[in-house]
């Protein structure tokens, strides 16, 4: 009996919440009929997330396990999409104590391993950020949110750097000092773990600076990250040229990587963006590949290269505050979609070409981004990269699929669109943490995340028009894959009793030996296997990009260039086997391979390994 009354209370509470929301909306000028037509209200009177893209998994009773149907309503497209502020350099004198090659443990440095490339590539420029709490307005109809961010911001400031010109690789070298000024225990507002480690995803970075999940920086400590910003091969296969420019990476990001606590910390805001230019991808549309200019990154009349950080979140219906489902082990889906920290913002553009850099920081959702135009039209765009690595040439696409941590750079041509409005629309259906259902919804049926209005002034456009480029390679060619692998290793990703396993084994812990050892300056072929028809996993390997040789036994086909493109996240779909090609060059140290559905990652879907001078022969680590 008691249980029945409990159930009723729960239902009543849900109904009450829904009724409150409805009253609010009606008071704000919406009529019930409008909400019904907008798809925000069911005929039973419950407010619902948009049709087809249910944001929170329902339990078998048809309600939600923590009593909360969904986030409170927010009126879409109320605020402008911010452009990420560029992180300013600091003089060396600003760093106290001055950085050294050896870790300065007695000065409060968390690092335990000496910088291995400090003398080869001494830092030329310096940056400093503090990981700390901050306040963010994610939507004007929600209360100010306490977030954790880099310099108190989420997403963190944009780091804009440049490779050294070929032959002078050391010119790109920087040092970033991070400090952990996160709040003490008792002040995390419900979630967030104030012990951190920062990963530059996916720099060719000496591994002591890469953000190994077990290299913790505790409160009050600092950590010097040395980013040489060099091309792979710089100390090995392409030493004479100063690295292999075909290994250039242009769109990266940084985020917390604390073992077991990455999901809550990145969800709370500890993620930011990082760009690398070089003499080809110059950031100036009058030179090199002539891609739309970055300018100062802020001025809408001169900055046409825009980084957009996407994520989805849930807000507490009682307090309006950001909510994290601490007991979820499958994957967390939000029903509010943010771009650069704002829910459903608006971007004004001029009628010309733009470069958009799209990043999905998760925690668990896969997107398929379309550009929805007037009358449910779909606007095609040029995909120029996979995970920040330029393809051989641009590919005209209608959409791009982006699982957690993946990036795509796209060129959108609004030249003939003055006066029109578009939406970045996610049409990939996903109802729980297992991954997308595979169903791609029709135009206008998905989540319209970002509104783009082409009402900016006419401005000169000197960027390349891809309809006019000659056939063949336009960017760098792909690196060749001729060298025979030293070893082929298999990583089989499985689930047993709700526990994640790789090759039938659970994650190893920080204090256990590496499960595999890669020989420095060697080639390895890896096989990723997913024997499940229910789960999908974005598999991420640190430090090196891979090239896909085969998927399910077949060489890449269809949008072949995109499938062959260099990547650092492999979207391992249902019952899939992929063979990928890695070269591990130049640096040594410890590194993980893991699922980048950060909820899976935090529940041990990770293998810890290392690169050393010898390597091992474990084929099933």
């Amino acid at each position, binding site marked *: 009996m008691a249980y029945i009354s409990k159930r009723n209370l729960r239902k009543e509470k849900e109904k009450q919440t829904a009724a409150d929301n409805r009253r609010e909306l009606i008071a704000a000028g919406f009529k019930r009929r409008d909400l019904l037509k907008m798809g925000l209200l069911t005929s039973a009177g419950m407010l619902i997330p948009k049709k087809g893209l249910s944001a929170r998994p329902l339990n078998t009773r048809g309600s939600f396990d923590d009593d909360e149907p969904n986030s409170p309503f927010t009126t879409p497209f109320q605020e402008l999409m911010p452009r990420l502020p560029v992180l300013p350099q600091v003089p060396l004198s600003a760093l106290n104590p001055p950085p050294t090659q050896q870790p300065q443990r007695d000065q409060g440095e968390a690092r335990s391993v000496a910088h291995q490339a400090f003398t080869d590539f001494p830092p030329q420029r310096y940056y400093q950020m503090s990981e700390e709490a901050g306040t963010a307005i994610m939507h004007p109809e929600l209360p100010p949110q306490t977030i954790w961010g880099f310099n108190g911001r989420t997403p963190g400031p944009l780091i804009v750097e440049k490779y050294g010109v070929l032959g002078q690789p050391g010119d790109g070298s920087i040092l970033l000092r991070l400090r952990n000024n996160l709040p003490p225990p008792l002040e995390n507002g419900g979630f967030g773990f104030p012990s951190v480690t920062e990963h530059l995803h996916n720099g060719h970075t000496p591994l002591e600076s890469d953000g190994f999940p077990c290299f913790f920086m505790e409160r009050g400590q600092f950590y010097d990250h040395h980013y040489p910003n060099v091309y792979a091969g710089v100390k090995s296969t392409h030493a004479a040229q100063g690295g292999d420019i075909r290994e250039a990476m242009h769109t990266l990001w940084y985020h917390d990587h604390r073992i077991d606590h990455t999901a809550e910390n990145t969800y709370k805001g500890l993620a930011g963006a990082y760009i690398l230019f070089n003499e080809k991808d110059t950031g100036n549309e009058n030179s090199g590949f002539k891609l739309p200019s970055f300018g100062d990154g802020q001025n809408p009349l001169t900055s046409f290269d825009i980084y957009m950080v996407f994520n989805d979140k849930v807000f507490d219906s009682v*307090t*309006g505050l950001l909510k994290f489902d601490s007991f979820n*082990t499958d994957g967390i889906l939000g029903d509010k979609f943010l771009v650069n920290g704002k829910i459903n913002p608006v971007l004004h553009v001029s009628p010309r070409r733009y470069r958009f850099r799209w990043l999905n920081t998760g925690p668990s959702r896969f997107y398929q981004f379309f550009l929805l135009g007037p009358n449910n039209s779909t606007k095609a765009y040029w995909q120029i990269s996979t995970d920040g690595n330029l393809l051989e040439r641009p590919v005209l696409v209608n959409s791009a699929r982006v699982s957690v941590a993946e990036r795509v750079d796209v060129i959108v041509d609004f030249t003939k669109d003055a006066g029109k409005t578009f939406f970045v629309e996610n049409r990939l259906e996903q109802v729980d943490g297992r991954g997308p259902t595979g169903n791609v919804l029709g135009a206008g049926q998905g989540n319209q995340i970002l509104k783009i*209005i082409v009402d900016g002034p006419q401005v000169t456009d000197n960027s390349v028009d891809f309809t006019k480029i000659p056939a063949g390679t336009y960017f760098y060619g792909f690196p060749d894959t001729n060298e025979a692998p030293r070893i082929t290793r298999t990583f089989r990703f499985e689930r047993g*009793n709700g526990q994640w396993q790789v090759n039938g084994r659970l994650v190893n812990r920080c204090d256990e030996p590496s499960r595999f050892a890669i020989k420095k300056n060697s080639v390895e072929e890896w096989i990723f296997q997913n024997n499940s028809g229910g789960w999908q996993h974005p598999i991420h390997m640190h430090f090196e990009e891979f090239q896909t040789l085969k998927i399910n036994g077949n060489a890449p086909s269809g949008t072949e260039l995109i499938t062959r493109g260099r990547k650092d996240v492999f979207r391992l779909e249902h019952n899939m086997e992929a063979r990928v090609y890695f070269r591990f060059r130049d640096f040594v140290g410890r590194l993980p391979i893991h699922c980048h559905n950060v909820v899976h990652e935090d529940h041990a879907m990770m293998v810890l390994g290392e690169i050393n001078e010898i390597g091992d022969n474990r084929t099933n680590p």
Partner: protein
Amino acid sequence: MTDLKRRSLVATLAATPFAVPLLTGAQSLDWRSRFKQVSSRERFRQRYFPNLILTDQNGRKLKFYDDLVKDKIVIFNMFYAQCEGICSPITRNLVRVQKLLGNRVGKDIFMYSFTLKPKEDNVAALKHYAHMHKVKPGWLFLTGSVEDMETIRRKLGYVDPDPEVDKDKSNHIGVVKYGNEPLEFWGGCPGMLSPEGIAEAVRWVDWPKNLEKTKEISAKAKANGGGK
């Protein structure tokens, strides 16, 4: 709502299949009147820890939040006494975790195993199971009404998203969840992880040790001119 915003919203709706003309007078919703101020700890309690009455292997009636979770470091898992799958290996694992955590268990760290089959697992069955595994004080095996145990299972996320898999109790979720309730630190790891690994994960949310360590590091950094 300003005219500009209203115009953009109208345009939005015109581009959607749910297009409707918006009414005049629509205003931005004021968050100050929409929401209540409730502490995050209290909201966490409301969301996850209904104060249901459970029974332990000694026949004691205990309230889920007030008696078992509040102000404690807790370790959760699911089991049932007749389970022939992963229950026994996980229980054996947790016996070693209990040893590793030493005399803290029962003082400020508590271990709770919730039965998935409350109809079978009465007090006697729980007592027998605990005895068989030689568990020490501070670790409770808990049963209750079918509905209450199901509520707890769902609240704590021991649910497979595939309903067919979820129905099969012999293939239940073997994750160990742990947390520090007053500090609001929560985490989870595979129950079949090494006992050292589980104990390490629990120690990361440990209190008050963690607080002391934190203070120590802060003081040191401050003395060295650290900070922002």
